[in-house]
């Protein structure tokens, strides 16, 4: 017979397990670098939290001094936006929320609901937002204690609304993310959203603003309608309702609190409904998805390389096709190129919707090339880890690991070249061909690419990391690899900057090209050495690599 256990004891046990997991994670970081990196991250995050909290204290203080709520409204908006958007954006790409796992233990639905709600408070963003709310209130208290005490219900209700709205969104996400397809679609949505915002903010919005200003007379008829709608909106948007609940007549404050309470109850009701589905095991299963037959096509045969390497390139590209984050990495340099090239200084705008400066192209070309190579080589730092248990297949097949690495780096190189050609075409079309600069950038690109891919060969076997699925939260590469690669990139950029500077200073525009030509065969040789090193290491450390990767 099982012993009956109280809900309090269950909560205590769960907290204990969380603590144990945290401690074990720390202990698992036997390699000190990882632990130091994590500690540094926490210290930096802590400092950011302290700094921003101080800013919020000041906002609260000035709001109290002025006796006005305009500043508070701004802070509420910031907190609301961050609390509701950031966790969803980050979790939106994670492989399911592990919290649902506890359903398998004998706990009641009410306790499950309680724990899931509490879980919302231990999210790093929620902790930050709660800290900020407290900071604002403390600032308010220092400047104007009457206003601060009057604001308590509004602050608390705003906090609870944020919590339950966020939990409701998460319960919805949990169901979407329970399938791999759902996770991938969510990731695509997040990337598309992020790109759209970038393009809108940097390219379209400034031009639209200018256009609206020039044509404001045509929109005068809209203003009375907008003036009628705005007060109504302020009673349905949470930050504004919270603002209504701080000052003003008692009826206005009571109304604001009542609306917030109704909103909280609505969120709780919806949240409980979603949570009940999870509690009842209503999570979709991928394997039940309907499937069908497809056309079976002949495999690729690429020119100049063996059939095996062609097959590896094809396999790698199929993998990349299914990884939204890889496609995102490929698209980032292009988007950055678009934004950099087309982001014109509005005040100097003289021609057309997309006007651009026609000063020398080499600088922006080189900058975008660095960016392209560094961003795109990022995934190659752990190229064996992407295969997960498939890594073993490479060892079982009658193929030398050198061929596998060549196939993998060839895929990365192909993608980089596509990006580079597009970026170069864009830069040359917009800013013109620089007689010394453009050839220098082209040669430097190949040298840089070979160097970074050689480095990737080395990092992939020195610090391999198994990657079962791509998420925004889980890093696909060991942080030590990132650190070393970043250092290398820093040195290269510094060196190339120095060469360009000396070339310009001594009036030798050919110098960067000469240096790039000198380094190209050297980097090719380094790439060759990296293959030897990686192959030897895979052979010597086969057991360690197998353990780490499969």
């Amino acid at each position, binding site marked *: 017979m099982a012993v009956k256990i109280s809900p309090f004891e269950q909560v205590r046990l769960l907290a204990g397990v969380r603590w144990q997991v945290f401690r074990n994670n720390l202990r698992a970081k036997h390699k000190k670098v990882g632990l130091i990196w994590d500690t540094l991250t926490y210290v930096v995050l802590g400092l950011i939290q302290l700094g921003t909290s101080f800013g919020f204290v000041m906002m609260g203080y000035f709001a109290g001094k002025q006796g006005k709520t305009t500043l508070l409204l701004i802070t509420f908006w910031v907190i609301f936006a961050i609390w509701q958007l950031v966790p969803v954006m980050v979790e939106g790409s994670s492989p399911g929320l592990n919290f649902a796992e506890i359903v398998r233990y004998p706990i009641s639905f009410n306790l499950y609901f309680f724990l899931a709600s509490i879980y919302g408070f231990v999210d790093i963003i929620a902790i930050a937002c709660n800290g900020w709310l407290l900071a604002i209130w403390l600032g308010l208290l220092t400047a104007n204690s009457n206003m601060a005490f009057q604001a308590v219900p509004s602050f608390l209700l705003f906090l609870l609304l944020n919590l339950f709205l966020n939990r409701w969104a998460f319960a919805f996400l949990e169901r979407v993310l329970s399938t*791999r397809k759902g996770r991938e679609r969510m990731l695509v949505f997040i990337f598309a959203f992020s790109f759209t915002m970038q393009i809108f903010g940097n390219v379209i919005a400034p031009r639209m603003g200018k256009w609206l200003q020039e044509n404001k007379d045509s929109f005068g008829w809209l203003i009375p309608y907008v003036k009628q709608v705005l007060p109504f909106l302020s009673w349905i948007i949470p930050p504004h309702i919270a603002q209504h609940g701080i000052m003003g007549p008692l009826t206005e404050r009571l109304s604001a609190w009542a609306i917030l309470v109704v909103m909280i109850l609505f969120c709780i009701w919806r949240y409980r409904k979603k949570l009940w589905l999870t509690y009842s095991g209503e999570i979709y299963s*991928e*394997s039940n*998805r309907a*499937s*069908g*037959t*497809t056309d*079976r*096509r*002949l*495999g690729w*045969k690429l020119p100049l390389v063996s*059939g*095996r390497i*062609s*097959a*590896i390139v*094809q*396999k790698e590209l*199929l*993998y990349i096709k*299914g*990884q939204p984050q890889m496609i995102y990495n490929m698209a980032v340099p292009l988007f950055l190129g678009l934004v950099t090239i087309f982001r014109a200084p509005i005040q100097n705008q003289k021609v057309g919707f997309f006007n651009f400066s026609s000063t020398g192209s080499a600088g922006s070309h080189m900058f975008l090339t660095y960016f392209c190579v560094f961003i795109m080589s990022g995934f190659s730092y752990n190229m064996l880890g992407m*295969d*997960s*248990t*498939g*890594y*073993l*297949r490479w*060892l*079982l*097949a*009658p*193929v*030398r690991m050198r061929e596998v690495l060549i196939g993998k780096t060839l895929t990365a190189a192909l993608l980089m070249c596509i990006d580079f050609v597009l970026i170069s075409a864009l830069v040359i079309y917009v800013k013109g061909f620089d007689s010394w600069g453009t050839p220098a950038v082209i040669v430097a690109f190949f040298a840089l690419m070979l160097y970074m891919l050689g480095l990737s060969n080395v990092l992939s076997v020195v610090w391999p990391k198994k990657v079962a699925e791509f998420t925004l939260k889980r890093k696909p590469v060991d942080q030590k690899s990132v650190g070393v690669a970043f250092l290398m990139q820093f040195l290269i950029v510094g060196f190339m900057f120095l060469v360009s500077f000396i070339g310009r200073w001594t009036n030798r525009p050919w110098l960067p090209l000469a240096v790039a030509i000198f380094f190209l065969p050297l980097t090719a040789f380094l790439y060759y050495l990296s293959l030897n090193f990686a192959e030897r290491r895979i*052979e010597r450390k*086969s*057991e360690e690599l*197998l353990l780490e990767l*499969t």
Partner: protein
Amino acid sequence: MPDLVIETHGLIRRFGEFTAVDGVDIAVERQQFYGFLGPNGAGKSTTIKMLTGLLRPSAGELVVLGYDMSKDAVEIKSRIGVVPEGLALFERLTGPQLLDFIGRMYGLSRETSKQRTGELLDFMELSSSDDKLVADYSHGMKKKIALAAAIIHRPEVLFLDEPFEGVDAVAATFLKNMLHRFIERGGTVFLTSHVLEVVERLCTHIGIIDKGRIVANDSIANLRAGVTVQGVHDSPVTLEQIFLSIVGGGKDKSGELQWL
């Protein structure tokens, strides 16, 4: 002279101070269905890793299909098929993509690889899931595709690590029939399994490893003849009884876990 396809002499593998495999001698003839058994941690996986070229022996001789593993590992790998522990599949490919890719990794032409991929998928009854990623396959389907991947290049020897684990009765019967056909056509199977009933029904020869050493290595009939089990007189001894009598797992634990 028997046609030996797997031959090891004094095979040793050490991990630091620990000796996982300690002087193993194995001899497997062509068309044998060889079952390799042992309790957990006995050295089965380490041995099979060495036999398939995944792990270098610390000492000893290892010859597969007449080739020395230390010199001709790539040649051996091209002639054997392996269903390893964990299956080692590229799970983000669909079934047809995976088989075609593996066929080409084993040097098949694009046309042959495509043709065999189609035939294997039809044979394994996986054709209706062509557009599904392997990651979304059920466990039984994964086993089938792993087996298909192991035989696409027509190997001479098949190494199967726990091929029936987690497979339902229908799929298991299907796999067994396929393996028998493989043997009839000149193939050899080296299999590890914890399901002794399956091994007993399938295998002609058995090797038992315990604490890194081979403690029994013979045909099932000879092993039966050489083992006497207390309390069993008339009925033939089962493989389970042979196994327990050799590795000494028959300890009486009836006095333990009284609370259960």
